[in-house]
């Protein structure tokens, strides 16, 4: 009961903001809050967009899934190294704390300058723009995924290091005394200890990348667009009747994020993070 009371201010704030925005988005999407003209209940906005919506959803899921997996692949070993390999600890800690505060927009602009056809990397390597693979705005969102994985792996490394730092040495030593080799200690002690934080981190990253606008806009291709980019383009369209379509795209993005969050929370319960 006490903890609920502590949560109340935050929950109230988040609840009101989310409820108002989601209600107004839903009303707009179903034609009940037009910018011009009479309100009328309809699903026209979804119909008019159908193929764009599904392609956008797929694009968003591709970006979120690959970014999250890559961030885990990079971040988990870095987090383990952060607590266990004392030689590189300082350097790694410095690196993650430099990466974390860099805004995504700056990260995206830098990745663009580095990886585009006329970018820094192809120039260093002496590759002509026409021979350079389409990493930026290509058919696979490579540059977007690299940007997210780069930033978010630092986040993963940090939360894993935090989760492990308290008791890992103790438990590892106990396991060693009982005759566990390094491989067994990693598999039986370290990874199980790291798994809940990694999962929680992965869910946060997944939801963030699913809804991120600026990186996908800056480094993405013209078509198909990820849902947030689609929603924002329609939202700022000079065709005022495109507003319901923008809301439809936003609503789909919200619903998919909520669905993923639901799955994620169930998974967190299973591993015992949430009870």
């Amino acid at each position, binding site marked *: 009961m006490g903890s609920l009371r502590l949560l109340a201010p935050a929950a109230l704030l988040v609840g009101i903001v989310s*409820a*108002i925005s989601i209600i107004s988005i839903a009303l707009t999407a179903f034609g009940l809050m037009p910018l011009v003209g009479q309100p009328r209940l309809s699903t026209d906005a979804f119909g008019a967009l159908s193929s764009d919506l599904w392609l956008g959803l797929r694009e968003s899921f591709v970006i979120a899934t690959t970014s999250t997996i890559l961030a885990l692949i990079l971040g988990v070993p870095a987090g383990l190294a952060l607590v266990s390999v004392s030689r590189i600890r300082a350097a790694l800690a410095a690196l993650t704390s430099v990466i974390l505060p860099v805004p995504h927009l700056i990260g995206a602009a830098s990745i663009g300058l580095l990886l585009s056809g*006329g970018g820094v990397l192809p120039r260093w390597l002496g590759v002509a723009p026409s021979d350079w693979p389409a990493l930026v*705005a290509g058919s696979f969102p490579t540059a977007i995924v690299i940007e997210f994985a780069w930033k978010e792996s630092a986040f993963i490394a940090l939360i894993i290091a935090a989760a492990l730092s308290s008791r890992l040495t103790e438990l590892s030593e106990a396991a060693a005394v009982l005759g566990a080799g390094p491989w067994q200690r990693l598999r039986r002690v370290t990874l199980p200890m790291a798994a809940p934080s990694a999962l929680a981190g992965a869910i946060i990253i997944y939801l963030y990348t699913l809804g991120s606008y600026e990186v996908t806009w800056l480094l993405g291709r013209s078509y198909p667009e990820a849902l947030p980019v689609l929603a924002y383009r329609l*939202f700022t369209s000079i065709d*005022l009747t495109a507003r319901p379509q923008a809301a439809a795209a936003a609503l789909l993005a919200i619903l998919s994020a909520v669905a993923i969050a639901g799955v994620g929370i169930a998974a967190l319960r299973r591993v015992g993070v949430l009870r």
Partner: protein
Amino acid sequence: MTSLRRSAAGLGSAVAASLVLAACSAPANEAVQDDSADQPWEDVVEQAQGQEVSLWMWGGDPQGNAYVDDVLIPAAAEEGVTLRRVPVASTQDALTRVLSERQAGTEDGDVDLVWVNGDNFSAGQQAGAWLCGWTDQLPNMAFTDPDDELLTNDFGNVVDGCEAPWHKAQFAFVYDEERVPNPPTSLEGILEWTSENPGRFTYPAPPDFTGSVFLRQALYSSAGGAEEVPLEFDQGSYDDLSPALFERLQEVEPDLWREGETYPRDSVALDQLFIDGEVDFTMTYGPATLTQLVENGTFPQTTQVLQLDEGTVGNASFLAMPSSSGQQAGAKVVANLALSPEQQALKADPGVWGQFTVLDADLLDDEGAALFEAIPDSPVVPPYAELSEGADPELSAQWVPALDEGWRTNVLVE
């Protein structure tokens, strides 16, 4: 309250009950007439003292930003008005803000002036978002020609005193002489050149402003000349004329940069490709800025403006005042200042911004005319008279979203 950004940021003001009310009442969309339009100018100036005016403008042109920051803002301060420049990634963002404020019934909105024209002006006018009938009050309007079509008619919309002219512009293609020694001289020629030199040409994806102009220029070409396209939009003409345009653009698509699988996001991205040597052409609706870009080494020394045999589209751009502005006197003073011969001449200097003036040379006094004569000639950009020779008119604003959307479905998605 439909605004995504508002809903993300603005909590306090919105309550569920008012939201449901708002859902049932879209604001009226008649133009708001300025009820202080017959006030003597001295009174306006007096009222403007100490007002803080926010000018929302596209922020993608460093020279334009520098002109406003270093020239216009200090000049406005001398007149007693604090001018603030609000850069936006696209003019649509400013319009979105105005419409959201309007929907919320704001009386002292954050937007006092918007650099605008064409479809954005028309969209605002449709929603009744602009204050109208105020520009005749500006003393410096006397230096503009009242019969100048470019100034009375903004993409087919009668201006009606809803916006004060700021500058004229001429669409132009830009190329690097060294890379393209024998440039084509028509739009069709450019497309043919593209097929002979695959991967070396592209255009920004509409609805980007510049990409959108390119579409209209290409429509004139595919229709067999500007005179074949009725300026007023009607669905019949669109259905007749647009298939040839989209077919032609689709045909050339495999020869575009990246085989047309993607397009530059905006004109800034296209300029970057041109600078990086990924493409050999770029295009701009503000060719006057090229002088500075070449001078400071952003563009190669061998940059040239390509004039088309058939002429290119030209327009004027304006400063519009939303009716939700709470600093109307201050905004009028700034709009008047921006129209003064001193400011127009400074702005026309390629070393400053290089935007072509809206003032009529015949209406200026000797002193004013001398200011313009003192502007140095540009080694890159031909003078406005030459550039605007055989200029094509802009299509009415309703053409713009129709073509943009048609391009999306017929060229981009296909």
